[in-house]
């Protein structure tokens, strides 16, 4: 059963990473590990972090909710509340599912995906640094716009300082890792709202 435990743990970790990367109130998240599907439903819109906006007027853009595939298509993401994630495994132990409900799940169904949420993943195992050197200003802050190729962090691995670059243009919605923290291969470092 150890494998099933590992599977649940992995699914759980990825689901949490995904919820964080979307950076908005998740209404429903379904993850199936067997044939790899990821479904998400969330409520928007949110141009600001003001909770009042979540119940904003109905004249906001296109209708929602909408689903997304695992490429991380998302809303005008705003961080709103902590996600609650639970993992279950079926009787045969061959499929794992994760459901997530956020505190913001009751907000209006209005909203649109004028932008795409994505993450900047870690290219390797190492130590994540937000600043060019200790005490210096960070490369980017939450809310900053970045351009493709712009350096957003340093990843130290095997005595080498490796620059981490944004691959697409967009806005940094969330920094998902503490400065000087150890990170794994593929771990989401930044949540990005592509523009």
């Amino acid at each position, binding site marked *: 059963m150890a494998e099933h435990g590992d599977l649940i743990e992995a699914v759980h970790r990825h689901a949490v990473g995904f919820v964080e990367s979307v950076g908005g109130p998740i209404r429903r998240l379904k993850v199936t590990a067997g044939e790899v599907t990821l479904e998400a439903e969330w409520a928007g819109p949110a141009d600001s972090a003001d909770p009042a906006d979540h119940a904003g007027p109905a004249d906001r853009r296109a209708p929602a909710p909408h689903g997304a595939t695992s490429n991380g298509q998302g809303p005008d993401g705003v961080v709103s509340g902590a996600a609650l994630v639970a993992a279950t495994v079926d009787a045969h132990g061959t499929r794992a599912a994760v459901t997530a409900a956020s505190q913001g799940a009751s907000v209006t169904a209005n909203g649109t995906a004028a932008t795409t949420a994505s993450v900047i993943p870690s290219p390797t195992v*190492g130590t994540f640094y937000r600043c060019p050197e200790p005490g210096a200003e960070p490369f980017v802050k939450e809310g900053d716009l970045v351009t493709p190729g712009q350096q957003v962090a340093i990843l*130290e691995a*095997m005595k080498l300082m490796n620059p981490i670059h944004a691959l697409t243009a967009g806005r940094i919605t969330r920094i998902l890792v503490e400065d000087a923290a150890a990170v794994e291969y593929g771990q989401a470092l930044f949540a990005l709202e592509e523009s």
Partner: protein
Amino acid sequence: MFGTVLVANRGEIALRVVRTCKEMGIRTVAVYSSADEDSPVVRMADEAVRIGPPPARRSYLYAPAILQAARLTGAEAIHPGYGFVSEDADFAEMCQAEGLTFIGPPPEVLAMLGDKAEALRVLSAAGLPVLPGTHRPIASAGEAVEAAAGIGFPIIVKALSGGGGRGMAIAMHPSELPEAYARARSAARAVFGDERVYLERYVESARHVEVQVLAGLHGQVLHLGARDCSVQRRRQKLIEETPVPGLPEDVAAELCERTVEAARAVGYVGAGTFEFLLDDAGEFHCIEVNCRIQVEHPVTELVTGVDLVREQLHVAATGTPGITQDDVRLNGAAIECRVNAEDPARGFLPTPGTIESLTLPAGPFTRVDDHVRQGMRVSPFYDPLLAKVSVWAPDREQAIARMERALSECVVTGPGVSTTTAFLAGLLAHPLFRDGKHTTALAETFDPA
């Protein structure tokens, strides 16, 4: 001989030293950081002491912890391997003060040759050709510009406490010198905690040739031939071989003899390597001395049949090498490839991580200096060396074919883990390498795609 030796290192070299100690009936003590508790040396050594957390400055570079481990385990001598404390004169002195034998040159020799500028003055005085340069620290950009006139461009600005290709900057033209000076100085401060730099003529295209020496306490010095380490990327050697391809035997012999004289003149003790650049005009220039066992020592061992670690222990315990120059017979050709956890397709990004599966080469005349095991995590805190693959053959052509066969057997997998195996195979197949006409520029410009 020593009863107990502590190995103050990690990875493949720690395992390699422990293996020879076992063969000699010497009890071994391994020291390890918490990142290395799964390392095979921890189990292979008779005793293992955890000396600190993963960052090297708090474990493998932290002298008090290493010395305490030696006291606790009753070690009489410390083998420092390469890197870490191996060329640290202060550490060697602390060992002396504790009544421990440091397996390497005495602290005075380490201090003299560890100061790269002073080393060049001393080596030049000892009769070895060196590149034109200041051979003393430069205190300002203005002074650098003044000194440059007597050296000639291009010029490389190097850290006095430097090594491993770090803390240096190149100025191709006079206009670039002030900036190169500033860059090297700040890198030297960041990397070595010593911002002093000096200037030297930069040789863009050259062969890297080095001579292995072994010296006793009383002027008994012998050499074990020359190696070619011209396949380098960012001053990190990738492929090493012996003999030096294309170098006439009499020229190699003369270089080795001059090196032996110089090693005697500077009071060298133990195993060491004198490094030279061989320029397009066929001139040798001594660039530095590595006061320790070298990563690439297996190729010398394969053509001489001499166990260099055993000789290091012999010198440290008795004051004299266990062999004489007459015992050294160079036979055949040997090549070593360093298999690193790096991804050539992503600019040689280091790729540490958990090793899911591991198949290392084996077979006739094939030596693997290993340390990674299946399921082990290759730590992001240390260098990317996964294994050294070395082969011996009667001649270079057969050695290359054997190395290609050996590399083709090498398969390492894990999430996010890549290796340089295919890149190395590409270099071996390169016409310049085949002809032995390659320089240090080969791997820098080689695109395997």
